[in-house]
């Protein structure tokens, strides 16, 4: 109990320090944040756009926006939720300006343009099997509609709560749940076609 209280106080202090650093545009803090969240942000953006080149572009735009609008961050919210919200809004802006990169292009046409990371390759067979599995998973995920892919990644990769996902996506809680259920069902169908009992 005491430990959790201490941790909560420490978290509050960290969040306040973070808010102060963002407000003052502390360059060291920003560089640290880029390093800390680069993989998670990029993964979210790839999930959102299904296009790694666009995702990298939006990745940079997101951090520039964090620099400019740092004073809008409030310490009572999780930084990653705020970060993902900015990334999502930038993506929506892009879609509005260039509709060809939008929902119509999220079907996975660019899936061949980026590789799946495979950090450990103990044997050629394992490597082959894992690559096959990862590529199958990637194909399945990128085959989903972006709205399902987004909530699946936020829930199961980022471990955001349903309320946080609702805040990031600007949707109601019931919409998030519905997307999550349908996304799981659709992905399951893609991963194991005909596997349903």
């Amino acid at each position, binding site marked *: 109990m005491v430990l959790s209280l201490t941790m909560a106080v420490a978290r509050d202090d960290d969040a306040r320090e973070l808010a102060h650093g963002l407000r003052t545009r502390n360059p060291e803090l*920003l560089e640290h944040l880029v390093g800390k969240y680069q993989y998670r942000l990029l*993964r979210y953006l790839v999930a959102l756009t299904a296009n790694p080149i666009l995702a990298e572009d939006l990745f940079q735009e997101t951090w520039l926006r964090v620099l*400019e609008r740092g004073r809008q961050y409030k310490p009572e919210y999780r930084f990653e939720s705020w970060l993902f919200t900015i990334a999502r809004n930038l993506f929506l802006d892009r879609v509005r300006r260039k509709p060809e990169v939008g929902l119509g292009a999220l079907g996975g046409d660019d899936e061949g343009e980026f590789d799946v990371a495979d950090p450990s390759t103990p044997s050629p067979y394992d490597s082959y099997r894992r690559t096959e599995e990862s590529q199958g998973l990637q194909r*399945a995920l990128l085959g989903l509609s972006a709205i399902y892919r987004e909530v*699946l990644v936020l829930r199961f990769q980022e471990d955001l709560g349903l309320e946080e996902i609702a805040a990031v996506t600007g949707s109601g809680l019931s919409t998030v749940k519905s997307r999550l259920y349908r996304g799981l069902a659709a992905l399951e169908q893609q991963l194991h076609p005909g596997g349903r009992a």
Partner: protein
Amino acid sequence: MNPECHRVRAQYLEQFAAGKPAADTLDIEDAAQGAHLSACDACQAEIERWQRTAAAVRRWRVATNPELRDRTVLRLRLRSEKLRQRRQAYQFLAAACAVSAAVNAASFRLIWDAAGFLRAWLGWPAVSQPALLAAWTASPLIVVALVLWLVHANPVDGAFAQEDFRHD
């Protein structure tokens, strides 16, 4: 699927989506739900499929470009420098405005008299005296407006052009 299966699965999925019980375990707290699940192979299979699918999402990895971080940091530094210069320009303008206002307040009487002298010397109508005073007072504002226009003519990549936190 009978209504009980439907109810239990919906209940379980609700908990599963909310993160309890832990997504990869079959840790059922509700006794009735647990009893049904332990007896119903179809429900067990369905739940295992959800767990497998969620686990698959967790395994998804994307490749990162090692240069991306460096490029981003470089752009951040450049933008940060531009923003700093812009802030300095605004601070300078604010100081100039304050000095101008102070000079105007201090020289009000002198300018009023000078405007009166000029009006009499040139034979202008009476209204020209306050008009000359107003023009003199407003001249720093015109300079400030001109400088601001020049600053905005070279925006920081549209830094202030878009609204954040907009939802569809």
